[in-house]
């Protein structure tokens, strides 16, 4: 049966796939595409700000580009790229054949994808959202046109996808670990995914509620945020940040996980302080929910609330500091190899520490009144998100590329990418701290000459072009190596410690011919140190049960995409309501089909597995 499955066309295969490794590739391509879009928007912002009184992007258009840069980078680039890494690696790291819910995994991807496409359709249909990525109600309710509606509906659709992905990884990690893979033997990236998924589960519903309220207010005459009818715009701020602050940790914890893998691998040493790393990850996840109001110090919550949130925020520096020292001690006395991923990891430490230090500065509520809404804040969160998350995603992409695609990326080009990006990043954002302290406000499309902002902004713009050049080199690297790259071994870097390096690159669709027995932390490393070639199996070779592929996840998501257009144009077009209802019927109908049609999956027979494994060894 599996041979029949392979005869499908490539496009149909990817539209219907439920294989976590293919879904990882889909996330990587879609997230990578939106990363380029968000990056172009960043370049436009920097071009506009390169000199005073510039007229490249003026007023409303600048607001749209700025809003879409933030929204795209967070929701449509960073999140899916994190999911790409999680899908590519986590099931294999725990010795599983797939995730707990392969169908939902595909559904999560397609919901994110259609939500993202919907959001970006706004560019061609009357203008993009323009109230900032935080879309505060006092601004967004007054925004004319449909920009904000695209934001509200697009993020709801993609938010469902993320929530589904979070539940999926929680269940996968709790229920599907191989024999012997106890919680305290899980690789750090798996731990990070576990905690991140819990954060997603509890952080996304408040965003959904906030978006529902905004949808009601804008499209159905609701009064949640309209002060005239008793509403309150601060409710949006709370709901948004109850989601928005954990979101920061949803992004950065997987980044920490990626770097933990890379430090241990290329220092050829066990991760220092593994149990304290686990503890710190869980603690950061917990504290991440306690600090949302530090985004709202200037709202006027009063000194007591501000003080509590300030202290809670500063407390997060403690577990983060534990992690930083553990990474340094992992390298200490290690046999370090400076590969491309390792260079990102080493560069990450000082860059992220700077973001952390300015974070503690911002956490001091009294001082925050000065920093608030200035470029100091812009510099701070770019140090955290780019210096932390984007570095990690670039590092992880280089590190796991051979595992995902079976080809090594070129190391020389990789290092050129690294240096261009590293220099460009600091050039762009370091100076912004000082621009902010000198009084330059964020989100304003221009500034006057003679205020001392000219040099700083020009430096910042030049830096942005360095990062653009780095991205182009990365793309060249991808194209060149996929045409004539060196084929990757199973243990592509030669120093792999975790289970993903024990299976072929790319892995067979069933991952493990026999479920492995895990005998300790760094399961594969243990086997190698004992002179064994492969893993110790935990079961005899037998038929392998696999899930069926399905087009329904695509159709369910497409239905919501259509429905969103219908409900948005409901008041001004006669077809609006009908299209909205048709879209919902498509979604509900597909869910109904999924419920009533039995799906038992299929088996890959023992003989086929033996055949496939022989092909790999030869």
């Amino acid at each position, binding site marked *: 049966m599996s041979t029949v499955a392979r005869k499908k066309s490539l496009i149909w295969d990817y539209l219907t796939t439920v294989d976590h490794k293919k879904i990882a590739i889909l996330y990587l391509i879609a997230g990578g595409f939106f990363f380029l879009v968000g990056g172009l928007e960043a370049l436009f912002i920097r071009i506009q700000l390169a000199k005073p009184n510039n007229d490249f992007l003026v007023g409303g258009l600048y607001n749209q580009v700025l809003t879409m840069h933030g929204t795209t980078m967070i929701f449509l680039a960073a999140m899916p790229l994190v999911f790409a890494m999680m899908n590519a690696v986590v099931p294999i790291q725990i010795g599983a054949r797939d995730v707990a819910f392969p169908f939902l995994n595909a559904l999560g991807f397609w919901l994110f994808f259609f939500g993202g496409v919907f959001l970006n359709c706004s560019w061609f249909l009357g203008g993009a959202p323009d109230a900032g990525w935080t879309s505060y109600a006092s601004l967004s309710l007054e925004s004319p046109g449909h920009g904000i509606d695209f934001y509200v509906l697009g993020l709801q659709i993609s938010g469902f996808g993320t929530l589904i992905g979070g539940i999926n990884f929680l269940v996968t990690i709790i229920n599907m670990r191989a024999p012997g893979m106890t919680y305290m033997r899980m690789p750090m990236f798996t731990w990070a995914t576990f905690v991140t998924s819990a954060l997603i*589960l509890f952080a996304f*519903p408040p965003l959904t509620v906030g978006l529902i309220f905004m949808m009601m207010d804008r499209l159905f005459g609701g*009064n949640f945020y309209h002060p005239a009818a*008793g509403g309150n715009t601060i*409710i949006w701020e709370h709901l948004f940040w109850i989601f928005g602050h954990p979101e920061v940790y949803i992004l950065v914890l997987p980044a920490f996980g990626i770097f933990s893998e890379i430090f241990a691998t290329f220092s050829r040493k066990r991760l220092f302080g593994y149990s304290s790393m686990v503890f710190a990850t869980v603690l950061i996840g917990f504290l991440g929910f306690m600090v949302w109001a530090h985004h709202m110090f200037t709202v006027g919550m009063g000194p007591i609330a501000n003080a509590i949130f300030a202290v809670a925020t500063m407390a997060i520096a403690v577990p983060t500091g534990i992690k930083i020292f553990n990474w340094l001690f992992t390298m200490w006395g290690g046999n370090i190899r400076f590969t491309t991923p390792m260079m990102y990891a080493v560069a990450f430490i000082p860059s992220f520490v700077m973001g952390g230090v300015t974070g503690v500065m911002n956490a001091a509520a009294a001082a925050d009144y000065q920093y608030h809404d200035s470029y100091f804040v812009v510099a701070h969160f770019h140090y955290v998100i780019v210096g932390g998350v984007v570095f990690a995603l670039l590092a992880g992409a280089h590190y796991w590329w051979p595992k995902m695609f079976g080809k090594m990326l070129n190391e020389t080009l990789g290092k050129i990418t690294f240096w261009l990006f590293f220099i460009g990043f600091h050039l762009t954002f370091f100076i912004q701290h000082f621009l902010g302290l000198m009084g330059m406000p964020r989100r304003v499309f221009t500034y006057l000459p003679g205020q001392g902002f000219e040099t700083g902004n020009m430096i910042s713009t030049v830096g942005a072009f360095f990062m653009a050049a780095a991205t182009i080199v990365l793309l060249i690297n991808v194209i060149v190596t996929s045409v004539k790259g060196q084929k990757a071994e199973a243990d592509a870097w030669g120093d792999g410690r975790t289970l993903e390096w024990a299976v072929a690159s790319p892995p067979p669709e069933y991952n493990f011919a026999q479920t492995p027995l895990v005998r300790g932390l760094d399961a594969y490393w243990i086997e190698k140190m004992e002179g064994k070639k492969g893993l110790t199996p935990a079961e005899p070779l037998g038929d392998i049960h696999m899930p069926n592929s399905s087009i329904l996840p695509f159709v369910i998501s497409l239905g919501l995409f259509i429905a969103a257009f219908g409900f948005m144009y409901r008041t001004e077009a006669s077809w609006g309501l009908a299209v909205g209802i048709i879209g919902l019927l498509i979604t509900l109908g597909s869910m109904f089909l999924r*419920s009533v049609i039995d799906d038992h999956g299929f088996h890959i027979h023992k003989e086929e597995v033996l055949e496939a494994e022989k092909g790999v060894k030869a």
Partner: protein
Amino acid sequence: MHVEEKLTAETFPASPEKATLEGKNKFLGFWLFLGGETVLFASLFATYLALRDKTAGGPPAHELFRMPLVFVATMLLLTSSLTSVYAIYHMKNFDFKKMQLWFGITVLLGAGFLGLEIFEFNEYVHEGHVFTKSAFASSFYTLVGTHGGHVAFGLLWILTLMIRNAKRGLNLYNAPKFYVASLYWHFIDVVWVFIFTVVYLMGMVG
């Protein structure tokens, strides 16, 4: 055990919802989903509490609410939670017919609740308590209506399962499905206990 295997009362496992890996995953995944739903309703409750006095000249809660009607609806829904317990009890004993019967009663009670809620909303609308009237009205209809939407979805879900499996009886493929549907139904019931307290009882005492 294979999911489609024909089982008897003797061979049917004690916890059929967790007897297969798929069942275990579904069981855990659904509990986690309910965790997320809890946060969703918590956000709706918090907003309602912040806005419940903002009537913008419309009728306030204590003049509006029809407590006898709400009380009857509450009793219907609480009873339906009990009858779904009976249904799962019979599922675990491999008594498919009795399970179907009790799920049928659950659906009828749930439909009764939903009917009363629609009637209640209709009454309120006639008194000028429309969705667009005030922040109180918007948050009231969104909180209670989201719950009502869950009831409607739960009814359709349980009905679909009953009809789909009417002819083939219980096996380890559909037992987890019935089980998580009943979990969902209990969750709806628990949320209603909070709505009855926070919205209706607190509404009557101002």
